[in-house]
């Protein structure tokens, strides 16, 4: 199969956000909460356009990274900002940084 041309590739953005929660949240909980936030805010169609992918969660620093389509970035940011709970506990996702590469997030 011929490779996809760079101009045809979908542009992505990596969103770094911190997790504040009443109780300690694990990676699976944060992942579920982030996906749920995007799905409930954007719906199935909107989520398919946003193409969210949870990259990881550093529990020690409370930082998580999610990837999405660059055209839907604002909507994903709003979806994460409007998340108010993780597994019934009060919580907030705080947007820290957006970059086109994962390496760019640590710069």
């Amino acid at each position, binding site marked *: 199969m011929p490779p996809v041309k760079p101009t045809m590739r979908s542009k992505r953005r990596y969103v770094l956000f911190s997790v*504040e929660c009443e109780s300690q949240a694990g990676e699976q909980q944060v992942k579920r909460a982030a996906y749920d936030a995007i799905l*409930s*805010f954007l719906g199935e169609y909107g989520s398919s356009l946003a193409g969210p992918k949870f990259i990881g969660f550093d529990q020690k620093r409370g930082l998580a990274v999610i990837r999405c389509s660059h055209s839907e970035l*604002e*909507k994903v*940011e*709003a979806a*994460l*900002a*409007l998340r*108010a709970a993780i597994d019934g506990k*009060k*919580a*907030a996702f*705080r*947007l820290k940084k957006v970059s086109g590469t994962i390496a760019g997030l640590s710069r």
Partner: protein
Amino acid sequence: MPFADLDVRFPVRQERMRELGFQDFSVPFVAELAKPGDARRIPPGAGLAVACSPDVELLREAARSSRARLLFSPAFQPDVGLIREAAEKGKAFELPVSPLLQSAGVHRAMLMGKMRFFARLCLKLGAPIVMVSQARDGFGLKSPREMVAVGQSLGLSRDQAEWSMTEAAGLVLDASR
């Protein structure tokens, strides 16, 4: 321009707001208007006062009064007369994030629809809107970037959302001092 959150409803430390990205914030005097004449009962030295009522006529009265600088209609009633009056008197409407955080599912969707239409009317009729958190605890506080993202989902452009927390908020703060 410095960002300001004009409606924080609990005592918060300035450092916390600075961490989030706000240079200025205010814990305003909230006047719940229940009957005619309540707007005149806002104490003159109350500082920044928010007039809040589901009744359009009471909000109109507050728009005419010199004591309330901010108006908040919890139901976001798209009353053209009220919005025109506020625009003439230079009073700003609050567009809070807190009701969105407290609602979910179809209720949030309906609320967003109301807020979007209300914001569109305000922009069309020239009434300033101010995005505020109305946070009652630390989890309700949002950074300017998050507020801009929410504002964009309510139909504002990035510039309009930023303007509502910088220049518009600055004008309200200056007028209340």
